[in-house]
C-alpha cells in the first residue's frame, strides 16, 4: 500500500529547473518580440508558448510520470480545438474563392462608429459638432432631443428609425451605402 502512495515522489530540483526554464522562456519570447520577423512572429511566439505549456503539463501536472491515459484525454481535447479552428478558418479564409464580395467581412466597418457617442468622444462634446458637419452627427443630434419625427430626414430613414429600440442611435439603421463615406 505505502509503495503505491510514494511512487510519484519526484525530486524538488526537477520542479525548480522547470520553473527556471519557464522564466527563461518567458524572457526569450518577450525579447524576440522586439524584432520583426514578419509572419514568423506568430510561429516563434506560439512555438515558445507550446514548449512552456508542454513543460507545465509534463512536470508540474505530472503527465510525464502518470498513467498515459490522462495525457491521451488532454491531447484529445487540444486536438479537437485544432480541428475546430482549422475547419472554421478554412471557411472564413476561403470564402473569396467562390465570390470575391464575400472574401472578407460583409460590412468592413461597424455601424456604431457613426453613433453620437463615438463622434462626441472623437471630436469633443463642447463644440457643437460644427467641425465635422457630417450627416451622421447632425442626424443623431436631432434624434437626441426627440423632435426628429421625420421632419427633415428622408422617409426611408424614419422607417428604419422607428424600428430601433429606444436609446439606440439612429445611424445604426443607415443603409450600408451611406456609411463608407464616413471613414475613420
Amino acid at each position: 500500500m505505502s509503495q503505491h502512495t510514494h511512487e510519484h515522489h519526484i525530486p524538488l530540483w526537477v520542479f525548480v529547473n522547470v520553473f527556471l526554464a519557464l522564466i527563461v522562456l518567458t524572457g526569450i519570447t518577450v525579447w524576440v518580440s522586439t524584432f520583426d520577423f514578419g509572419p514568423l512572429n506568430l510561429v516563434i511566439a506560439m512555438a515558445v508558448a507550446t514548449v512552456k505549456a508542454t513543460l507545465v503539463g509534463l512536470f508540474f501536472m505530472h503527465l510525464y510520470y502518470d498513467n498515459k491515459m490522462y495525457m491521451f484525454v488532454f491531447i484529445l481535447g487540444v486536438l479537437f480545438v485544432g480541428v475546430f479552428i482549422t475547419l472554421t478558418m478554412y471557411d472564413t479564409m476561403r470564402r473569396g474563392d467562390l465570390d470575391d464580395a464575400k472574401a472578407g467581412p460583409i460590412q468592413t466597418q461597424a455601424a456604431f462608429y457613426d453613433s453620437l457617442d463615438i463622434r462626441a468622444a472623437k471630436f469633443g462634446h463642447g463644440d457643437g459638432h460644427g467641425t465635422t458637419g457630417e450627416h451622421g452627427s447632425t442626424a443623431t443630434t436631432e434624434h437626441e432631443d426627440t423632435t426628429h419625427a421625420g421632419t427633415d430626414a428622408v422617409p426611408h430613414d424614419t422607417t428604419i428609425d422607428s424600428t430601433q429600440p429606444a436609446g439606440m442611435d439612429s445611424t445604426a439603421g443607415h443603409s450600408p451605402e451611406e456609411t463608407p463615406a464616413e471613414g475613420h
Partner: protein
Amino acid sequence: MSTVAQDASHPEYLAHHFSDIEQQKESAKLGMWIFLATEILTFGGLFCAYAVFRAWFPEMFHDAHKVLDLRLGTINTIVLIASSFTVVYAIYCIQRNNRTGTVINLALTLLFAATFMVIKYFEYSHKIHVGQLPGHFYFYDGLEGTNPHLFFGIYFAMTGLHGVHVLIGMGLITWVMIGTLKGRFSSEYYVPVEMVGLFWHLVDMVWIFLFPLFYLIG
C-alpha cells in the same frame, strides 16, 4: 459499518465504492483530466474567435496590441509561473507529510494569484477609462485601424474568462488550505490538493498562450 470504516485497510477517506486508495486516486485524476479537456474546449472557442478576426484584420490587431502594457503582462506571466511552482511545492510537501510547508506554499500561491488580479484590475480600469472597450462601448480615439473594438472584445472575453478561472482557483486553494490546516490531508490522502493543483496549472497554461497572443504579437 463503523468497524469497516475504521479498518486500517479501509480508512475514512477511502470511499466505500473503491477497493483501494490507488484506484480512488486514479479515478479522481481521470475525471479531473476529462474536466480539463472540456476546459480546453471552452477556451478553444475563444481562441477560434481570435484566429478568425486576427486573420481578417491583421493590421488592426497589430496596432491594437501596442496599447496593451507589455510590462504588466510580463509581470503577470512571471507571477502566474511562480504561483504554479508554489502549488507544485505544496503538493511536494504534503507528499512528505509536511503540512506547514503545504499551508505556506498554498498561502504564497494565493498571494501570487491576488497580485495577478490586482494587476489585471489596473489594466482593466485603465482600458475602461480610456474607452478601449468591446462593441459599441468603444470610444478610444487613438487607433486608426478597422474595427479595433473587435480586438478589445476578444481581449476582454478571453482574459475575463481566464480571470474568472483565477478567482475560482483562489477559492479552491483556500478550501484545500483550510483542509490542510484541519489535518484532513496527509501523505496517504491528498487527492483534493492534487486536483486543485491540476486546475491551477491549467489556468497557468491558458495564460501562457494568452500572453503572447495579446501582449507580444497581437
